[in-house]
């Protein structure tokens, strides 16, 4: 009996010790964490190819949904179990905290080696997202802290088939908000499908569009001045921005439940020819083709409010891989990232995943629908490229306010006042 108890105790203790034991990283293996699960096959193919070329094993561990992934990375950083390479979901402030905590390797020196041979491969606008400039307000040593794998652009998109069915010219996209509303209404009337759809249950999509319109209405300087607290959200031009969403609602061009809709649902509906317009990212090219390979559509620039003013496009930030500064395999990790950002691999990713490459020399591989988007690269704007960011609590109120406007629960004035109140509270 005593022997049996002893064996049992030994087994339990053994299991606990094994469970708590942290396995040592293999010398010839790089582990990568990311949330872009739709590219699993392409990544696995590249990993296999890299192993054949170098003998080094690369394991991609892809996690879904993204917000759970975000928390996993934070937990791993706390526990000291970050992989060799990982992506970070979140605003620049979060990336800055990871850098300050010593979790992310500064890649500036390796990027600039050999007459900038690595750095010069990227679109400057794409690489900028991974950089902390000399005048950054995050208290981070200036430098490059990641390797972009692709580029993202947020633009309007229209369905050519529904354009034709509604008697509209499929080669002529709307240039102004007035035209956009008019086209959307025509599509609704003539085809019975909805005019516009977007996953506005996800507040950041609304936010991206609001920022594009805000910059068109007030200019980028005044927009940044608002973040700095020099301009009020109750300013006439901000109310004009909020009023645009009120107008879209009043024109009845989108489904009533748009503020509770996920982007996946909106993408599904657009790909199935059930909506004339959508506002989405360049990743949607892959999504649409997977849902409906026959879909005929094109991206177009922001329908403007002020024709004479500048138009900025929310973009630049694609997937970025960061190197774990504590990884014993960091040199191998850098070699792999250098390899995956080479033209050959980037071309493969473009063809297989229908995403805009981070490598500037891959334009020839781009399908026409993506090639059009490269025209907007010089007018990118993105929070990761701004000198400073708005407080997360203000953005939360801003996004919720926009959702309530499109649900018909609040007016533009109400929301402007609420956002300004929040801004004053958090800056007090």
């Amino acid at each position: 009996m005593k022997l049996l108890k002893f064996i049992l105790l030994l087994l339990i203790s053994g299991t606990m010790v094994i469970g708590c034991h942290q396995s040592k990283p293999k010398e010839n293996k790089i582990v990568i964490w990311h949330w872009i699960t739709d590219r699993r096959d392409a990544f696995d193919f590249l990993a296999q190819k890299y192993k054949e070329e170098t003998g080094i094993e690369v394991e991609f561990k892809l996690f879904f949904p993204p917000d759970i992934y975000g928390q996993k990375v934070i937990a791993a950083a706390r526990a000291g179990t970050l992989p060799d390479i990982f992506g970070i979901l979140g605003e620049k402030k979060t990336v800055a905290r990871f850098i300050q905590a010593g979790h992310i390797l500064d890649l500036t020196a390796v990027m600039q080696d050999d007459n900038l041979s690595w750095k010069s491969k990227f679109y400057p606008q794409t690489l900028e997202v991974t950089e902390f400039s000399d005048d950054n307000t995050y208290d981070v040593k200036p430098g490059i802290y990641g390797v972009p794998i692709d580029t993202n652009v947020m633009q309007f998109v229209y369905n050519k088939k529904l354009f034709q069915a509604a008697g509209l010219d499929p080669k002529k996209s709307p240039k102004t908000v007035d035209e956009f509303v008019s086209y959307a209404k025509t599509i609704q009337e003539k085809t019975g499908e909805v005019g516009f759809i977007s996953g506005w249950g996800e507040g950041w999509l609304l936010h991206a569009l609001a920022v594009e319109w805000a910059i068109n209405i007030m200019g980028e300087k005044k927009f940044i001045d608002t973040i700095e607290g020099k301009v009020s959200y109750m300013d006439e031009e901000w109310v004009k921005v909020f009023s645009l969403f009120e107008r879209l609602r009043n024109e009845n061009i989108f489904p009533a439940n748009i503020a509770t809709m996920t982007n996946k649902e909106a993408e599904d509906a657009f790909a199935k020819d059930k909506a004339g317009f959508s506002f989405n990212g360049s990743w949607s090219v892959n999504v649409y083709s997977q849902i409906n390979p026959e879909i005929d559509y094109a991206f177009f620039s922001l329908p403007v409010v002020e024709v004479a003013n500048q138009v900025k496009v929310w973009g630049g930030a694609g997937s970025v891989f960061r190197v774990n500064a504590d990884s014993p395999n960091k040199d191998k990790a850098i070699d792999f990232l250098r390899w995956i950002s080479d033209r050959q691999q980037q071309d493969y990713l473009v063809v297989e995943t229908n995403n805009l490459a981070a490598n500037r020399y891959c334009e020839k591989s781009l399908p026409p629908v993506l090639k059009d988007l490269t025209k907007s690269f010089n007018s990118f704007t993105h929070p990761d490229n701004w000198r400073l960011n708005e407080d997360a609590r203000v953005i939360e109120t801003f996004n919720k306010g926009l959702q309530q406007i499109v649900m018909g629960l609040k007016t533009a004035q109400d929301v402007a006042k609420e956002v300004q109140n929040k801004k004053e509270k958090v800056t007090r």
Partner: protein
Amino acid sequence: MKASLKDNTASFSFVLPALLIFLVFYVYPFFYSFVLSLTDYSLIGKFNFKNSFVGLQNFKDLLVDIDWWKSFYNAGFITFFALTFQNILALLLALAVDKVIRMRKFYRVVFFILPVLSEIIIGLLMKQFMLSEPTGRDVLNNILNNIGLGFMAQDWIAGHNVRLITALVHCWKGFGWAFVILLAGLQSIPDQLYEAARIDGANTWQQFCKITMPLLMPVSTLVMVLTILGTMQAFAMILALNQGAGGETTVPVMIIYNHLGTGQAGLACAEGLILGAILVVVSFTMFYVSKIIREKYGVVPN
């Protein structure tokens, strides 16, 4: 008779594993959350209490945060429906199934299917059931049209209705739990009491008021407390159903979750503590009220 040291040690050794688990997984996180709530720590990097200490600022911010208290209103609204509509429905069904009716085992299984299903699944199913084209199947509106109630067809998960619809879906998903617990309570009431009451000439209503309700009071209190705790912490179903609908159905746990995700761990801990404190106060109040009622009805000795 005094217990020997050996007896005490033996007894304590049985309690020790549970005590350790309780200390490590409940007491320690509680105190650590309290410490974090006094800081602006983001969970990234080493925790330095001195550098991140903000005193009671997080609590002060929350006291005047309209969004935070609105989330309590939303959760309270859903809880009110769960306490009334859901539990009354559960009691009526439990009373029906408790009686000798045909296929009662079948009904017991059917009513318990919903609580067994994941909240996410229920949220997504109901979304498809109620949403109009192009993203939904418009099932509910089609049914209404087919039975001549087309005038009631509308966009269910939009506008002013969204909070009410969320409450009803929550009740629909949750009534199975209350049903099972109340049914167990009903079955623990001895039949002899009803027989004696019938011999004394009591009608069904009198039997219900004088026997069923008083004897069901301890179970009802448990159901009410569980309903409050469960509903105030509801999260996944609402997220799947409507994403919080621009704050109209955002509940406290959703806010805590978002703040954790955006690196505001100190604030999230303060929110967690406030939510926990409110739920503890509500639960103890419920038990106290129930005790008074039971004493009044003579179910427990004074």
